[in-house]
């Protein structure tokens, strides 16, 4: 089934993408919606959860649904930057060095278990994520557009891992958590005999151009001034509150703004409402802050939710 949908009907094309992904990730509509929003908002996704809840499957399903060039990189501690960026090799024919692009040169990159790679390799990914460019031996190569990094990490693994630094976390638009599926869905999954087959047969429902057109559309979503003030008030609170060491950065606010626009479009509106901000505050902001009393991402999410509950919504 080949579906090519024009961006003139953004809602149905986003729905088609979500439906397609939901065929393999069942019972996770919220997470799938957030993943779609992330794509629309030109962001990279960090999926963080315990093993075996479908992180890789989700990334895989998104890549396949988009019908774009896709590479999966399994991060390990001995992975070198050149393993993902590429290497220059001396070509006998041309009598010159020739650059052989690595797996990073594709539209969708699945960086599996990103926290297992050394900081050096992680930072190689950093430039690619923020600039969509990589530098190799004093030359800069532009990555294809769209360029999306889907990274996964296991929060419970400590042995032999290198936690991502704040600067790199800030470059992910959202951090998602999948969680265990509802009992009904899990039961169906067990009886249905796995999702590998479905995943293999997943057809793309959106082209790269469709996605780019949708992204253009997202920037036109209206965000009123009072809503911006609301977001500013939330950010200000993280910066002033004594509970936080590190508040939300300006990049974090920009990310929230873009995500809110994308979420509004996915909800079928051409304007954003306070509910969008509340829905996105924790996935977009939680991985960007540092709590004073420490704690994992879950604690950060709870802190953000508490914060949302204390700031008045503009009427």
């Amino acid at each position, binding site marked *: 089934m080949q579906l090519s949908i024009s961006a003139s009907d953004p809602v149905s094309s986003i729905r088609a993408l979500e439906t397609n992904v939901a065929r393999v990730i069942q019972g996770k509509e919220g997470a799938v919606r957030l993943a779609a929003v992330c794509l629309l908002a030109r962001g990279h996704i960090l999926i963080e959860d315990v093993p075996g809840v479908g992180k890789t499957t989700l990334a895989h399903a998104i890549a396949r649904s988009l019908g774009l060039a896709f590479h999966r990189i399994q991060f390990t501690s001995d992975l070198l930057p050149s393993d993902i960026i590429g290497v220059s090799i001396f070509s006998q024919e041309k009598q010159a060095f020739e650059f052989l692009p690595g797996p990073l040169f594709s539209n969708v990159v699945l960086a599996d278990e990103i926290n297992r790679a050394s900081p050096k390799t992680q930072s190689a990914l950093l430039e690619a994520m923020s600039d969509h460019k990589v530098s190799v031996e004093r030359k800069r190569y532009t990555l294809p557009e769209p360029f999306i990094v889907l990274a996964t990490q296991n929060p419970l693994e400590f042995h032999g891992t290198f936690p991502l630094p704040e600067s790199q976390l800030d470059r992910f638009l959202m951090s998602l958590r999948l969680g265990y599926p509802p009992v009904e869905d899990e039961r169906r999954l067990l009886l249905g005999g796995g999702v590998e087959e479905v995943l293999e047969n997943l057809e793309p429902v959106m082209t790269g151009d469709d996605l780019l057109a949708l992204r253009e559309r997202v920037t036109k979503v209206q965000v009123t001034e009072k809503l911006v003030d609301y977001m500013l008030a939330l950010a200000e609170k993280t910066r002033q509150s004594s509970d936080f060491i590190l508040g939300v950065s300006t990049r974090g606010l920009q990310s929230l703004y873009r995500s809110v626009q994308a979420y509004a479009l996915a909800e079928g509106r051409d304007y954003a409402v306070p509910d969008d901000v509340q829905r996105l505050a924790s996935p977009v902001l939680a991985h960007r802050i540092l709590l004073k009393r420490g704690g994992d991402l879950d604690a950060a999410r709870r802190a953000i939710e508490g914060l949302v*509950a204390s700031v008045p919504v503009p009427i």
Partner: protein
Amino acid sequence: MTAHPAMAFGREKRILLGLLALLAPLPLPLNETLGWSFLAIYLLGVVVFIRHAASGSDRWLSPWMMNVLGLLYLPLFVIDLRAFSGGRLVGPMLHLGLFAILIKLASLRRERDKWQALMGIFFVFLASMATSVHPSIVLFLLVFLAGGLYLLMRFAFLHLVAGFGQRDPALLRLPLGAFLGTSVLMTLVFSVPLFALLPRVSSPYVNVRGTGTGTIIQASGFSDEVTLDSIGRIRESRAVALRARFDDPARTGIDQRYKGATYDVYDGGSWRRSPRVRSFSRSNEGPVRLVEGAPESWATLWLRPLASRSLPLPTETRLFDIELPRLGLGTGGAVILPFPPVEVLEYRAALGGDDLSAALDPPAAGPEVPTLDPRGLTPAMRTMAAEVMGKEGTTADRIRRLESHLATQYTYTLDFVGREITNPLEDFLFRYKSGHCEYFASAMVLLLRAEGVHSRLVTGFLGGEVNPLEGYTIVRQSNAHAWVEAYIPDEGWRTFDPTPAAGRPESVAPSTWSLVTQAWDFLIFRWDRYVLTFGFEDQLQLFGSLKDLWARLWSPRVPATELPPPADVVPDDSPIEPLPELSPRRWSDSVWIVGGLVTATIALFWWLVRRRLRGPLTATGVYRRLRKDLAGAGLPVAESLAPLTLERRAGRRFPDLAEPMRRIVSLYLEESFGGRAVVGAARQELADALGQTRRGLRGRSAEG
């Protein structure tokens, strides 16, 4: 401290404070007490403050900077006190007060500072009150106080509310703009008509330039005794002495003379003013006739405080009218005021065709006659007078010979550096052969007396600057001049001017630059005319025109009658009409007008309040009400509850009302965040949904 940071209202309070500071010096007679320049700096400072406050910035002037600024002002204050205000205190104190407030505003940081600044503003206001007492200003003060009180109560209330954990954003958002707009509007609506219509309580300003200081009286050149250099001193000043508007446009801009004072006795280098011959009280005499003869046109004059008891009048004046209880008339025909004017004095003069003086006819002859007083005459002067005037021709011809001799053979100068003066007039006539108008005029008077012609010295103003903006003439102190009046038998007292044309004050044609200064002068003139000296007569006139307007409004078929002709000049022999009294009929008019205005204002206010209470049907308003109703029905509605979440929760709680609530919320979101106003059918839909939910929610709280 309160739990909620937004409950501090710092920004709102600062803006309000700035606006009050902007209003505080309003009742000052601005051009008198405070220099315009100082006021401009003050206003600029306050505007900057308001901008700063509006931007919500928290960075203000640091305390040490404020101290430095305060110290810097101290020497300026001393200079202000000594140089600009001639030792008087009120002006500099007001300057100091305004400056202190400005500094205080700039250094606002804490709550306590705000109250201090507010008190400062209040005291400046009180000080400005002291300069002019007037019902409208008293009313202004009341409104100011009431506004401040209301504000205080409101803030106290909000702090209290915040203290008990109430966090309704509707309370947080003070309708500051509306409140300020309304209070300013109300102040204007109330005080302007009252200012214009209520009888004035006129009280002299405390602080006016030129009162009570001897130096200025001497410099004015119109005091009871003048030396030969008085005019020279006054001519250095560019200050406006008087403004005159002539009903006959042909007179505007001509070399008009304004006679101020006359001097008969010359003794030891100084002149003594002609004695007073007559005092009259105006209440039973009305307009004062000076000279017989038919007046041709009227002129209106506004004399600024000149620290002199002289009333300058055009030399052609036949009769004049002034609102003063008592006046004096000198033997030289100059009018003497009972006291130096302390505010702008308005009066009217009816002018005739020529410059016949109002002076008394001199007695036949003799050494005791002041206009032939021989003091100061020397043999050399007598010889010269006989030579120049000769014996041929009429008296007028002989006088003119002397006049032209002086005007052509002597030169004009204001420069007296290095002169040794023993007998100033002899030195002028035979040694230096140069001097200024007072020398020329004094010499001519004495020479005429040597030949037996009655004569005296006259001081006043000549010429002026025509302000094209309202067709009036600005006469400055630099237009001060001295000339001669001589008596020609069978004709009367005539004006002669021996000063060479080069030395006379000029009538200045408006230039490009002077247009700017004249525009400024025009503003000051208006302020003088319509604020400071808006008196009883003006009020009567306003009543008349309002009545006409009223009559015209109610009888539209009657064509608008032409304006009444200008006040008739009283014919020669007819008794002078007394000033019309304010009749009871007019009082009832004023009661009607004031009552109508008050009623209209109350109606307007009521309408505004109702509008505010009811408001047009907006989805946002309906959504607010829905929140309130849901809270009343027992659903917890926190401030941080977003609309769609509210809709979901309310829908679960009241499933039967889910649909209308969904419609309200979606219309509200469209309006508030989508920028699409609710119009047409959606309006009806909104109203229906509101009605449905209200009916549905009524009495639900018990269930909840």
